[in-house]
């Protein structure tokens, strides 16, 4: 077991157990002290990753049996066939991705151990990879994992409002799963959609690794993002890509205004 300090830190980082009331009280107390800026900086300091260590729980512990399904085992062999037999560890990332799809959007420590066995490395080498990449969730997520881009272009275009709207609508905190287990909201860094900022990515784990999709929803407004969530809740598939009614892909609203002519003739 980890020491109590570790548990406390864990809870803080996940933002789970500390009630908002006590938090704001603490903030008020601190604001009187001269280091309030620093303290505010601390509490608002965001970590892109979750905890860097594992906490045993009934649903996530090393003693849990875990293996790839038969269908996924074929994919594993396919992944391994891409690499020389003495560089099996190159397959860690695709295998973690596969394990995440199979396990409903997150990788338990037992799955990492299983992968370590397949690629014949020490488990810690898989843990290192899994903790490095923020796309690997090491705690439970919803069936639809909503990832709000928080990088500068999206932030300028209002990604914070998007996230607030999502959190408020779903009644959860960041990285928390809704009570029906359907949704969770996370943050990620730039996905290269800046031209259609702000955007979210929706990882759909509801249909296992066979029906797994990872769709972008772009040009969002707080209102539209709630609509998308509602559609997902009803089991519909909202149209992916830009949500701006007048835009097509990354083109301007109302159609192209320049470069109509055939480029070859210009030259």
């Amino acid at each position, binding site marked *: 077991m980890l020491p109590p300090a570790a548990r406390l830190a864990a809870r803080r980082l996940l933002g789970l157990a500390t009630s908002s009331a006590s938090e704001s009280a603490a903030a008020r107390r601190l604001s009187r002290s001269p280091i309030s800026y620093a303290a505010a900086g*601390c509490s608002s*300091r965001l970590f892109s*990753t979750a905890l860097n*260590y*594992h906490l045993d729980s009934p649903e996530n512990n090393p003693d849990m049996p875990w293996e790839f399904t038969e269908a996924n085992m074929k994919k594993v062999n396919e992944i391994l066939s891409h690499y020389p037999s003495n560089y099996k560890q190159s397959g860690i990332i695709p295998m973690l991705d596969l394990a995440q799809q199979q396990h409903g959007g997150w990788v338990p420590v037992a799955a990492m151990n299983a992968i370590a066995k397949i690629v014949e490395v020490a488990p810690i080498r898989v*843990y290192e990879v899994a903790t490095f990449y923020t796309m690997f969730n090491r705690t439970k997520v919803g069936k639809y994992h909503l990832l709000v881009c928080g990088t500068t272009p999206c932030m300028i275009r209002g990604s914070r409002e998007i996230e607030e709207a999502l959190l408020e609508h779903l009644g959860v905190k960041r990285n928390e799963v809704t009570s029906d287990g359907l949704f969770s909201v996370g943050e990620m860094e730039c996905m290269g959609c800046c031209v259609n900022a702000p955007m979210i990515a929706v990882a759909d784990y509801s249909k296992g690794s066979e029906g797994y999709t990872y769709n972008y929803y772009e040009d969002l407004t707080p209102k539209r993002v709630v609509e998308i969530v509602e559609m997902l809740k009803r089991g519909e598939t909202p149209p992916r890509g830009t949500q701006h009614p007048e835009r097509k892909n990354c083109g301007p609203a109302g159609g192209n205004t320049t470069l109509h002519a055939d480029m070859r003739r210009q030259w």
Partner: protein
Amino acid sequence: MAFFARAIRHSSPYLRSRAPPPPAVAASCRWISPTAAAGSPEAGAAVAPADPETPPPREPVGGARVELPSNPEDALEVFVDGHAVRIPKGFTVLQACEVAGVDIPRFCYHSRLSIAGNCRMCLVEVEKSPKPVASCAMPALPGMKIKTNTPVAKKAREGVMEFLLMNHPLDCPICDQGGECDLQDQSMAFGADRGRFTEMKRSVVDKNLGPLVKTVMTRCIQCTRCVRFASEVAGVQDLGMLGRGSGEEIGTYVEKLMTSELSGNVIDICPVGALTSKPFAFKARNWELKGTETIDVTDAVGSNIRVDSRGPEVMRIVPRLNEDINEEWISDKTRFCYDGLKRQRLNDPMIRGTDGRFKAVTWRDALAVVAEVLQQVKPEEITGVAGKLSDAESMMALKDFVNKMGSDKVLCEGNGPSPPADLRSNYLMNTSIAGLEKADVFLLVGTQPRVEAAMVNARIRKTVRATQAKVAYIGPPTDFNYDHEHLGTGPQTLVEIAEGRHPFCSTLQSAKNPVIIAGAGLFDREDQDALFSTIETVAKKFNVVRPDWNGLNVLLLHAAQAAALDLGLVANPTESIKSTKFLYLMGADDVDLDKVPDDAFVVYQGHHGDKAVYRANVILPSSAFSEKEGTYENTEGCTQWTIPAVPTVGDARDDWKILRALSEVAGAQLPYDSLSGVRDRISMVAPNLVHVDEREPCTISSEVKPPVKQQVSSTPFKTVVENFYMTDAITRASKIMAQCSATLLKK
């Protein structure tokens, strides 16, 4: 001291120190400056000659010697701060600077570990390079013009230092690394006088790595030395770098203790106070300690150590560089057994009264009692047993004394019923520990080097990692931290190999430098003569012993064993002890005390109240290895001295002095009164024991041995060392070792 002394140690095998620097010199080397050759750049300029064309060659860092390859094409010339230096091909820029006498600051670089290049502290300017270059990871190219003292290089280091200190806590006053901290030293020498970081520092949860290593992970600067040490040298893949960016931390992810017999070394390689010694925590400051350069006696390797003491107390033990024996590592047993030196000690001579209780007496009374008993027993009933920690001087005195009393029953524990003392090559590691690196096939017979001699095991692992050498093992299933082939558990497998029937023969046949290592546990077997003759057959068959290569080895278990065999302490223990009426145990605790006749008079001369004290009639307190000058011969036949670091406890005396005094009281005075007198006597019996730090090759080959008629038995080999952490009186008295046995050994 840490930075400069480590810089000396960091020198690669090419850069060997001439000799371990004496403490005074090392202390004077504490001055750190960007230019190691002179205190300040101005001073460096002042001593520079008037002729700018040919500046004089500078001395390498730490007086290291550079071995240039014999082929001149394999050497190249670079310029460091304008000074031309010749270096072997494949050196990095950092090594080239070291050869030129410029000490480059570094955190992540360690010459015995792989190059990570992630601390960026070693940035230097290289002409025609657009950016400063991380010198530890950059290979030196011919004609490269390296500048270590330019504004660019200085500013780069300052910037790196500012980033490193950004998240580093300001708890130096309560940090155990304070005073020997690389970060502290280098920020003084290379850092800026202020930082610009005003946010909150980050904090990291501490990890529990077991009873030996204390972690304060907030101090960690992510140099990954410990991760690389664990996976490369120690061979335990437990530590890793978790997370990314500012959340990055060293850890095990799942709760796991570091179960390596070398784990204590991460304390030394950690450049900051993130990994420190748990038993030493808050006990002393390093500048209060007196360092004594001595050797370790807890196993037969004779690792070079520095005993740090404060007043009469040993505070800690740290390794000393010796490329030929322990490189710069030591095992956890060596490092942490020191608290055993303070517990269970025998202070006064004691006599067991009629009520069975010990009573403290004066030396005069104790010796008189022993001498009186000696007069009453027949000479052939006298037996002397030397313990596993005995030094050569006391064993010499014990042998001379027992012989003078008219008995030849004097032996050393652990050497078995018929010690193979006739030929030195039959009980030594003839390849030498450093020589193992040239081997390509290892055959381990009845030995588990990981627990018997952790440093030898580290050397084998190094070889296996570097050259993919194959390791085959005959013995009970055991833990290895490298790939090995388990051929079998008993002598039959060995016979099969000797007769060429085993599939492993083809591997041995194709080996260039095969090595056979037989464990000293075989000495205790009834069929040891037959076993060793079988091993010699294997050696002959596969050309293991050649004029240019001797791969036939015995790995001894105890510090006293080799010297005892050299000095001829070779009586048969079972017979001698069964028939004895006067048993003189000189620190011998592992003799079979049940076999001692009830009416025998047992004298226990030793430093710890261990097993044998329960049977003793008289106790004569002696000094431990940290308190006396003694000669020890390690498993490869290298003679080394211990140096007294602390005074003895109570009324204890050196072993040989007690025997000398007793001999006088008993009327058979030994003819030496001083340490040099004993050593003169030793030089008559075994001259190699007075040639310190030398290995004398065995001149007589094993072919002169008479043929053996014995048959090998089918009994499988046994595990010799059951508990790595507790093997002798000192380690059995140690609390830390008891904790280790409780938590780290596999149940």
